């Protein structure tokens, strides 16, 4: 999450776009998972959790079944812990039936360096053994630092490192938008 809100931030996705994108991703999940029987959605805090909940609601509409949804906090697994003061922890909530033998779809707002997802894969390792792990993101802004790619992408957004991408969701920010801004100082920090 690039938190530096610039004054020239330009919306790339607005509320209705985000809703459409999530509907499309939900259909893609059902298609790829052949009915989404064993899908467990795990959102990465903060905004990934809200996206996972919205995706679960859409999946329930499509399949008519209850889709387990939870959250996975990756703070303790970050590779840059030693570079910052300790961060406050967010909630990890694994659905009751666990993740063993299931298809886990990780959900996050922005895919950037890929380091968050690496940490999430490590965290999953300590929780159970999924049948497979897939990744859904609202925005892929490029600049990967690890060999990681998303299975479901809301919008590919080619950016320069000078730019910031900020996702706003109604649950947290009061409105839905993806904002592209310019960072006046150094290149965007690691995710």
């Amino acid at each position: 999450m690039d938190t530096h809100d610039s004054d020239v931030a330009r919306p790339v996705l607005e509320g209705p776009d985000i809703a459409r994108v999530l509907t499309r991703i939900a259909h893609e999940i059902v298609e790829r998972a052949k009915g989404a029987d064993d899908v467990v959605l795990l959102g990465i805090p903060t905004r990934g959790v809200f996206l996972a909940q919205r995706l679960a609601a859409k999946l329930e509409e499509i399949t008519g079944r209850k889709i387990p949804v939870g959250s996975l906090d990756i703070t303790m697994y970050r590779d840059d812990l030693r570079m910052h003061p300790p961060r406050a922890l967010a909630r990890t909530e694994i659905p009751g039936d666990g993740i063993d033998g299931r298809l886990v779809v990780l959900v996050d707002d922005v895919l950037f360096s890929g380091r968050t997802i690496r940490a999430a894969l490590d965290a999953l390792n300590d929780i159970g053994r999924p049948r497979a792990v897939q990744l859904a993101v609202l925005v892929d802004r490029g600049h990967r630092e690890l060999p990681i790619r998303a299975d479901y992408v809301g919008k590919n957004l080619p950016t320069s490192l000078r730019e910031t991408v900020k996702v706003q969701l109604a649950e947290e920010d009061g409105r839905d938008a993806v904002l592209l801004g310019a960072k006046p100082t150094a290149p965007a920090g690691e995710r």
Partner: protein
Amino acid sequence: MMRHLISAADLTRDDAVLILDTAEEMARVADRPIKKLPTLRGRTVVNLFFEDSTRTRISFEAAEKRLSADVINFTAKGSSVSKGESLKDTAQTLEAMGVDAVVIRHGASGAPYTLANSGWIDAAVINAGDGTHQHPTQALLDAFTMRRRLVGRDAGLGQDLAGKRVTVVGDILHSRVARSNVDLLHTLGADVTLVAPPTLVPVGVEHWPCEVSYDLDRVLPKSDAVMMLRVQRERMNAAFFPTEREYSRRYGLDGERMARMPEHAIVMHPGPMVRGMEITAEVADSDRCTVVEQVANGVSIRMAVLYLLLGGNEPAVTHTRPATERPAHTAFPDEEK
């Protein structure tokens, strides 16, 4: 910035709430099949215990191991301390081994402060109980237990203990648990009442942020939590009360007294309990008694403290007091400085 945990009085309200919130997440690790986090990988923590302890040492050790730290246990018995080595030399030995944190329990009040501020070592110092001075992680785990029981696990997140009435009963004079709890509970907004025979109330208690009473039965109906303390015979060199029977009749908690407490009120004890003295078996085994819960919560709290002090490049817990200033209540001789 200070990066030690020496006294519960050093914590601000926000620091304390952050530690409690972090502990709430740490507690969830205990429910997992693999109870381990990689967070302190490659960091070395020494448990430096100059005084006997089972639960505190084991609790710290469990917390350190769950965070993947390398743990070295040191007890004064069977070490070079019994041959006459000073705290300074022990500390410098540890420093030479590249230790990142020292968890210290010492019989002398102020020993952890000396260790942290002497310049002997660079490591973070965590006080695991010093003499009759402080035991900050005990106060934190007690506050955590109260918040969980009286406010709620999820409802408590971000909250303090404002307006909760806590009664601490027993050997206040010799109790570092009581001192730490008074400091921390006051910071968290709770109202503390100390109950003890006059001989077991310390001099200067009128300057503590709490009330004092000599009548347990008057205070019980107005308590949300009642903390029973053990009478510390090993620190007593005089007669503080006529007989144990008289003490336990006036200041012990039995089933009849417990029934006078409000329905939601809990009974706490830092352990070890002396059944029949300050607490009867009936009370100790009732589901209002949180002794076992407190032990489990102790691991979560210590994980939180270790993470917040050692997990990043600088501690997340700030201190209100500058490191150079020596507080009045840690009066102790300058050791070989």
